[in-house]
């Protein structure tokens, strides 16, 4: 297990290097770094200064080393729009995004697993069919359009919930949270539901498929024959066995929730890093875009690593050995 984690860790570091190389090639070789990294309002003297500071007059490999060194030191350039270090801006916005993503994931899990379990246990009931039809709808509905319709319904027509923003926050461990105020919840609910919809459909389908498969297994028959109540058989035996793929998917999908929050944050004006990315793209604030890219790559590598390790910890059958990641 220890060796496996170390090997996966090493692979992750290699992956980070590869991705940083790709980002570097994208920014420095395909695009023109002078346009990309220097504010269009800069004068000749400023341009000359930054060119020298970034070493743009040096050979490409040397530029990459400089870029790498600065990135490792946490220096990913300064935002044109805010004139603060880009990395600082992103880290400031990260808790809001994480809060939204976690809330969405929680909604998907709390609703998705029981609904999927029910649909798997009683596949022919009307309710199960309605659940499955709903999950197809959830797969097909474009996320951004659902967001607009939620705003139309809850904010414009009914006037129950605010249409945008984050609401009141309280500080805990030096981070702002909206989970502890009613106003925060009122602001959080719609975007979280919007973001959860796709994952909810996915979890329903996954749980249903797992349940239908598990219910036919011998251990279920045995547990029933032993005289256990159905409730206990499902709650203990079935649920435990279908949890492995579900936990994996939850882990892997968390990254995609963070990515999709770009859309939801833009619609609901949620002040997270996704909205920051779109705003930065729109005002051509490229250092922030580059910094976002590196941060999100690091986040993904970390999530994938975590899922892999968790997976092998959960399921003794998949103690992957010797498989280079």
């Amino acid at each position, binding site marked *: 297990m220890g060796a496996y984690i170390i090997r996966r860790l090493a692979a992750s570091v290699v992956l980070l290097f590869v991705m940083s190389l790709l980002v570097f090639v994208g920014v420095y070789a395909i695009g023109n770094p002078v346009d990309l990294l220097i504010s269009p309002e800069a004068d000749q003297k400023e341009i000359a200064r930054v060119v020298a500071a970034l070493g743009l007059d040096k050979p490409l490999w040397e530029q990459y080393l400089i870029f790498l060194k600065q990135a490792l030191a946490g220096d990913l350039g300064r935002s044109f729009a805010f004139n603060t270090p880009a990395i600082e801006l992103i880290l400031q916005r990260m808790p809001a995004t994480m809060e939204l993503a976690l809330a969405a994931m929680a909604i998907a899990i709390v609703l998705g697993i029981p609904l999927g379990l029910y649909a798997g246990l009683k596949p022919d009931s009307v309710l199960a069919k309605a659940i499955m039809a709903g999950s*197809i709808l959830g797969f*097909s509905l*474009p996320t*951004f*359009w659902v967001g607009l319709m939620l705003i*139309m319904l809850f904010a414009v027509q009914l006037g129950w919930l605010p249409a945008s923003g984050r609401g009141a926050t309280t500080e805990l461990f030096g981070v702002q949270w909206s989970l502890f105020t009613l106003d925060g919840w009122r602001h959080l609910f719609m975007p979280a539901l919007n973001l959860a919809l796709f994952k909810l459909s996915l979890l329903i389908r996954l749980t249903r498929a797992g349940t239908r498969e598990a219910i036919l297994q011998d251990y279920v028959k045995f547990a029933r024959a032993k005289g256990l109540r159905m409730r206990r058989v499902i709650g203990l035996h079935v649920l435990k066995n279908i949890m492995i793929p579900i936990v994996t998917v939850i882990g892997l999908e968390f990254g995609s929730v963070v990515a999709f929050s770009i859309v939801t944050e833009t619609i609901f004006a949620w002040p997270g890093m996704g909205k920051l990315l*779109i705003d930065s793209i729109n005002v051509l604030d490229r250092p922030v875009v580059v910094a976002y*890219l590196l941060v999100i790559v690091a986040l993904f590598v970390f999530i994938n690593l975590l899922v892999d390790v968790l997976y092998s910890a959960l399921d003794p059958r998949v103690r992957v050995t010797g498989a280079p990641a």
Partner: protein
Amino acid sequence: MNVSDALIERAPAAAHVEAPLRRFVAMYAESRIAVVALVVLVGILLCAVSAPLISPQNPYDLAQIDILDARLPPGEKSAGGMTFVLGSDDQGRDMLSAIFYGLRISLGVGIAATVAAVGLGLGFGLIAAYAGGRVDALIMRVVDLQLSFPAILIALVLLAVVGQGVDKIIIALITVQWAYYARTVRSSALVERGKDYVEAARCLRLSPARILFRHILPNCLPPLIVVATVQVAHAIALEATLSFLGLGLPITQPSLGLLISNGFSYLLSGKYWISFYPGIALLMTIMSINLVADQLRDVLNPRLSR
């Protein structure tokens, strides 16, 4: 085998060609929802193809639109006496016409990108499966790497670097899609490669290219068709999302996503129709494609065949 033998062999084979197709149709028709979805999908395609013929007005001909007709609710009449069945947008364009034209662009971009990505993925997948070894490892490592990132992120970043345009969004959609096809084709090609008919073709000293394209490829197509159908829906949804975010198509090529984005600013004042109806069109398109793909998967899946 002499000529007459070959003829005798061929005759029953020709008679058999009809039967699988008929069986395929019969199996597809077993699900009533799938048939309805197919009819809806064909209807949508017809609307998109014949948009200039069936639209009440050409929404991009400035002579036909009047700014005084802007933001009229559904059912209202224009100054020229035409009825806006689905209302009009902020420039006085008929929403129904704008949706027909938008469908054209959305479907066109989605299908074009998918076809190109299938071609690319097919090539890489076949090469990986047939060559094996280092080539295979390299291609699959790139595929794995790409698939570990969500499509929307890759497309977004790509567009942020290269800029807007129909060609650029198609490139972005190809980039995010090819890996799915490469993986699908590779896995089915690997299975096919070990089968006897490939061995037989090798014994006949057929060229590797001939074995790949005439023997292995046709047998890899069913799973590829299913994945490609689902992916068309994904491509259309992704394009709409990117256009909504203002990073996809330029304002001169308004796809459904751009129409929805247009209406966003009027939503808070209760003018729902500018965003609502293009969204319904998009939903119907994606849903009908998904349902058709679902049924295709069941019909084409050999494990489920009875």
